C-alpha cells in the first residue's frame, strides 16, 4: 500500500465526517471552560510558596552561620543544609521558568512544548531524588535545631552520646540510600529496584527522560 492510498482513505473518511459528525452544542455550552486557568495558577502559586520558604530558610541558615562562625560544629552543619536549600532554590527557579512558559498555553510548536512538559517532570523528580540524600544528613539538622530551639549543643558533654547514636543511625541509612541512588541512576534499572520504587515517581522520571530523547531524535535532521 502506498501513502497516497492512505491519503485517499482519509479524504473519503473526511467526507463521511462532513455528513455525519455532529456537535452537541448544549453540552459544549455547559463545559466549565475556565477551570484550567485555576489549575495552572495553582501550580504557579505552589512553586512561589516553595521558593519563598526556601529563601527564608536560606536567609535563616546564613544568619545562623554568621552568628556561630567560630564554632565549626554549627558552621559545618548549617553549610551542609545550606547547600541542599540552595540546590532546591535552583531547581524551583528552573521549574518556575518552565511553568511560566507552559502557562502561556499549548499554542507553541509541538516539539518545544512537549520538551518543556517532560523537562518539568524530570526536574521535579530529580529534585525528589536528591532530597533523598537529606535522610542520612539528619544529624546536622539535629545539631542546628538543638541550638536554635533548645539552646543546647549536642556535640558537648553527655548529649554527645545521643548525637553519636544518631550519627550511627545516619550511617546505616547512608549505605542503602547511596546504593538505591546509584542503582536508579543507571539507564537500565533492575526489576527489584523498579518494584521497590513503584509509585515513588521514578517511573514518571524515566518515562520523561525517554520521551525527551525521543523528542530530540525527532527534532534531529537525518
Amino acid at each position, binding site marked *: 500500500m502506498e501513502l497516497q492510498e492512505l491519503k485517499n482513505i482519509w479524504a473519503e473518511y473526511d467526507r463521511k465526517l462532513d455528513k455525519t459528525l455532529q456537535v*452537541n452544542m448544549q453540552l*459544549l455550552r455547559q463545559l466549565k*471552560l475556565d477551570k484550567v486557568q485555576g*489549575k495552572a495558577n495553582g501550580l504557579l502559586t505552589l512553586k512561589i510558596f516553595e521558593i519563598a520558604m526556601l529563601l527564608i530558610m536560606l536567609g535563616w541558615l546564613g544568619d545562623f552561620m554568621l552568628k556561630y562562625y567560630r564554632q565549626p560544629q554549627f558552621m559545618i552543619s548549617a553549610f551542609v543544609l545550606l547547600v541542599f536549600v540552595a540546590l532546591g532554590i535552583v531547581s524551583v527557579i528552573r521549574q518556575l521558568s518552565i511553568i511560566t512558559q507552559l502557562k502561556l498555553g499549548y499554542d507553541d510548536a*509541538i516539539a518545544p512544548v512537549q520538551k518543556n512538559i517532560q523537562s518539568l517532570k524530570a526536574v521535579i523528580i530529580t529534585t525528589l531524588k536528591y532530597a533523598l540524600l537529606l535522610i542520612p544528613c539528619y544529624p546536622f539538622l539535629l545539631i542546628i535545631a538543638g541550638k536554635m530551639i533548645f539552646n543546647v549543643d549536642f556535640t558537648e558533654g553527655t548529649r554527645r552520646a545521643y548525637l553519636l547514636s544518631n550519627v550511627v543511625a545516619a550511617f546505616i541509612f547512608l549505605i542503602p540510600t547511596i546504593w538505591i541512588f546509584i542503582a536508579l541512576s543507571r539507564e537500565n534499572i533492575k526489576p527489584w529496584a523498579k518494584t521497590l520504587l513503584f509509585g515513588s515517581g521514578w517511573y514518571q522520571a524515566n518515562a520523561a527522560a525517554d520521551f525527551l530523547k525521543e523528542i530530540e531524535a525527532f527534532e534531529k535532521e537525518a
Partner: protein
Amino acid sequence: MTPQADKDQFLYLIQQNKKLIFKVCNTYCADAEDRKDLVQEVIIQLWHSFGNYNNQYKLSTWMYRIALNTAISFYRSDHKRKANTSSISENIFDIADDDTSIELDERVTLLYQFINQLDELNKALMILYLDNNSYKDMADILGITETNVATKISRIKQHLKQQFSKQ
C-alpha cells in the same frame, strides 16, 4: 467584545473545526470513555489560548498545535482522567448513522492500525500529512524544519511499503 460574544465566537469556531478536533482525539485515544475526556480537555485548552490567538499564524496551525499538544500530553499521562475535566455521560461529538459502506469503515480501521504503530510525534506528523497540510505548515506546527518533515514522510513511506510487502 463582551465575554458572551467571545464565548459565542469560540463555540462557532469549535463547530467549524469539529473534524480537526475529532480526528486528533480519535487518533490518540482508542478508548471511548477516555476520548470524551480528551475532547473536553482539548476544548478547554483551546479556550484558554483563545484570547492570545496570534493572527500571524493560520487558525488551523493554532488549532493543530493545541489539539496535538493536549492529545500527546493526555496520552503520556497514562490516559488518566484529568482533574480539570468533569465526567460527562454524553459525547460532545457524535457520529450520526449513515449509509456509508462497511468497506470504508474497514479501510479506516486499517488506516488507524497503521497510524497507531507510530510513536506520538510521528502520529502528529501523519495526521498533518493526511490532512493535506503543506510541509511549511507541518514544520510550523511540529517545530522542526521542512527538510526534516520531508525526511520523516519519506521514512514513513518506506515503512509502509515494507509492512505491506511482508503481508
